[in-house]
């Protein structure tokens, strides 16, 4: 298979910030991203779970975006401006992608 090097960026951020983060990604010209639900977790702010919750406060979502390496810096700057003062964690992994023409 013909693969291309790229970066996989995974952002776990509090749910009330989701629309602001995706807005920032859109503005930064990120080609695509996917939002996954999160059930719960643990961090410096303690243990939490979505079970039975009605408010989006106290929930998180995971956002995965696969981008060309040269675009990762721009993406991270956009992301950082949003997550800076908020609860969240960002990690970047090297990956290979199929169908690079899609990016």
């Amino acid at each position: 298979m013909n693969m291309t090097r790229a970066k996989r960026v995974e952002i776990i951020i509090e749910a009330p910030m989701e629309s602001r983060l995706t807005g920032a990604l859109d503005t930064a010209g990120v080609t695509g991203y996917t939002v996954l639900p999160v059930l719960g977790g643990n961090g410096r702010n303690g243990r939490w779970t979505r079970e039975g919750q009605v408010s989006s406060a106290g929930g998180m979502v995971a956002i995965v975006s696969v981008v060309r390496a040269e675009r990762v810096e721009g993406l991270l700057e956009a992301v950082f401006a949003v997550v800076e003062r908020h609860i969240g964690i960002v990690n970047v992994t090297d990956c290979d992608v199929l169908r690079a023409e899609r990016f």
Partner: protein
Amino acid sequence: MSLAVDNLLSPLILFFALGVLAALAKSDLTVPEAAAKTLSLYLLFAIGFKGGVSVSAHGIDSALLLSLLAGTVLSFALPFIAFGLLRVTTQLSVTDAAAVAGHYGSISIVTFVAATSVLESAGIASEGYLVAVAAIMEAPAILSALWIAARFSTDAQSPVDARDQRGLLREILLNGSIVLLVGAFLIGFATGNDGLAEIESFIVAPFKGVLCLFLLDMGLVAGRGLRSSSHQLRFGLIGFGMLMPVIGATAGLAAAQLIGLSVGGTALLMTLSASASYIAVPAAMRVALPDANPAIYLTMSLGITFPFNLTVGIPLYLSVASAVGA
């Protein structure tokens, strides 16, 4: 007194207590998130619609506008009182205190719903438009909280990031619970008793049972919050969580007297003023005051003030309203 005991022995309270106990005992009893959200949609749908039908039946009371105005003023004003009180009785930072204060100006719709249930069981009528007052009280407190945080914070960083504030106002005013509550109210108003007849067996008869299930869930969430955040709950905070509703209720009472609400309406406006938000305001605070500690405001609102109102507050407000109204 017997009212209070009756209240404590109602299935509503007991299911809430069951939830709290189950969570404290670390039972794995949980209500799925989707179910909790759907129960909440159902309650908003039903309470909004019934309020609208009631207004359409009784006609638009001269007091309606006054009540909306009173609600707006209360929601704007109560956070200032709450903030002052918090700064005196607790050691919360300005930001944390502002965030908590915002919750107490706004309202908890399920507390309101529980109060209407108590009124119904007691056969006491109330003004249907108080549902609209509930809706209008959701948002103003948030603005007060942000203003307080900006004004009193000595922090170099502005408490509200410009980028985050963009759209915040729209988000607050168009948040799902307000839209559904107001929308259902207007639809109930427009379709009146004919509309009610069509969907009555969905929104009237099963209402209290659904409320029990929802309160079970609220108990579970409150209990989990208490368990994981009990170390945050200094004595002063707990005291605030029970004093502030009484102050709010007093302000609500004064407003109700000025407007001339019925006994039931007075009890409901007191309940609204006494209650603290646990859906819309926490989410807004995460966006606008990210440095405020969510464990504090969520636990205060859901773990202290909500059960206080459910058990002690509502019967108290109703007794006072009856005494004053008699």
